[in-house]
């Protein structure tokens, strides 16, 4: 059985009482197997968030049907095994992070025994233990995103629906969340996430679904897509004068097409990851 089945979903919005219809989704069909990690990729306004809300059952589609583990999304029962992180969540500023996650744990009918410990463990997983008894009003954007992730995870869901899970999170945090999502895979959980960032989807997902103007224009396994062309990039130290020309000749002599030279663009990110990442690791060791 598929974990998520999306069948010909169409969604029209009518802003205002007599406004013109806006078609946010147009006949989207997508099937996601259990244990699969699928990324929705698309530009702003392409309908990613709308599709995810329909999957969770927060919006009713104009046409089509959607099922989670075989249960129609509109039913309350469908949400029993679901964790959902909305886009840019903003929680009640007067609650502490701990209170918020505890509240959602209770709503999700988690067993009472050991609930507090479980909540603390989840908060620790998203890296907010130090601030969990502070009011959410004092959190930064990224902390809010993390506490949002914690409330989605606290019921130990089989299906995770994450709308831009790393928006507003620093690269170290994004890498941590990426690692967490990868762990879900080994635990057999299903993840449907949306993102603007092709790189992130490439790193995390088994499959990518590309949305544009509400239409599903492409769905493919990520490794198939990236293997296309089968090219290889070499990464080397700065080349001395003239070596590039020699190298090119050498390759041509062996029948290998030379496509071009690029300066690696992610240097800053790597520097950031290496310095900040090492620091936070060191911090872990101290504590």
């Amino acid at each position: 059985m598929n974990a998520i089945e999306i069948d010909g979903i169409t969604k029209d919005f009518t802003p205002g009482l007599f406004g013109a219809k806006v078609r946010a989704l147009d006949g989207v069909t997508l099937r996601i197997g259990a244990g699969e990690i699928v990324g929705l990729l698309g530009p702003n306004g392409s309908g990613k968030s709308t599709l995810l809300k329909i999957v969770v059952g927060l919006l009713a589609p104009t046409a089509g049907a959607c099922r989670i583990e075989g249960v129609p999304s509109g039913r309350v029962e469908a949400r029993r095994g679901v964790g959902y992180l909305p886009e840019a969540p903003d929680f009640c500023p007067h609650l502490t992070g701990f209170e918020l996650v505890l509240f959602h744990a209770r709503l999700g009918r988690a067993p009472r025994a050991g609930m507090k410990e479980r909540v603390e463990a989840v908060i620790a997983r998203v890296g907010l233990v130090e601030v969990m008894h502070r009011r959410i009003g004092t959190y930064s954007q990224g902390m809010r995103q993390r506490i949002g992730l914690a409330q989605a995870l606290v019921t130990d869901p089989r299906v995770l629906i994450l709308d831009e899970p790393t928006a507003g999170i620093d690269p170290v945090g994004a890498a941590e969340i990426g690692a967490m999502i990868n762990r879900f895979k080994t635990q057999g959980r299903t993840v449907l996430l949306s993102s603007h960032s092709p790189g992130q989807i490439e790193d995390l997902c088994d499959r990518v679904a590309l949305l544009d103007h509400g239409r599903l224009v492409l769905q493919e396994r990520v490794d198939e897509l990236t293997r296309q062309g089968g090219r290889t990039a070499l990464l080397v130290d700065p080349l001395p004068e003239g070596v590039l020309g020699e190298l090119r000749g050498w390759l041509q002599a062996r029948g290998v097409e030379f496509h071009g030279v690029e300066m690696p663009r992610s240097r800053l990110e790597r520097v950031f990851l290496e310095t900040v990442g090492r620091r936070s690791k060191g911090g872990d060791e101290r504590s």
Partner: protein
Amino acid sequence: MAGWRFTASGIVNSRAKVTVVVSAVLLITGAALRPVEEWVRKAEPHPMRPVRARRINAVLGQGTSMAVLGGFRALVADLLWLKAYLAWSACDLPATETMIRVVTTVDGRPLCFWLNGARIMAYDMTQWRLRAVGRGGAVPTALRRRITDEQAGMALRLLEDARGQHPESAAVCVEMANIHLNTRADPAAAACWYRQAAALPDAPYYAARIHAELLKRLGRPREAYAWLRQLHPTLPPGEEAAGAPVVLGRIRDLERALEIPENERYVAPEVDVVAQRQQKID
């Protein structure tokens, strides 16, 4: 209820449907609850009279009348009573009279507005007018008489209105009797009002006694005697304010004065008989 169903219709249709359903349910609810509403309205001990809106508007202006209608009637009446009090402190007769009238119109439920208002009209205002006319000197008896009568009339008219709203209130009747007695020196009218007061459920015991006293003073001792005879057995013996021994004493006085034969004299019920009767009632 099987979750909310996905509807194929557009939002405009859905919103229109919601609007229609909500309006219909509200109408049906209102109609169904009408009997309860009417019942609660009827259950009021002093049914609220609609305030005459025009009259209040004329005196108070639109804002205050809105407050009156908006559920702050008692509060507005209190504040207006303050105004009446200020006018009273300044011995301003027309203003005081107007404010008393307005207060009782706005909220006629508290008895104290009616009673205090009537007392001010009957006693204080008379004094003010006499002082103004006499300028320290003596006022001719005829003029004094007229002023006193006019003020008593004003107070009695107010109390008549009070009786319209509080027909069961003995305090209003007692107040009317007092005014007849004290300012108009009219014991006959006073006796009449004391009797009316005595017939009401919350009447003070003294009303009946004063009624008899006035009859005696009016030269109708037989009526007074008959009244007291039928009054005495109704008085609870244990209660001091009821004054059963006093009434019995007066009965004996009248019997002596009227020379009632021994065998026709009033026989007071034994205390324990009364007590037994009381027990039966309980």
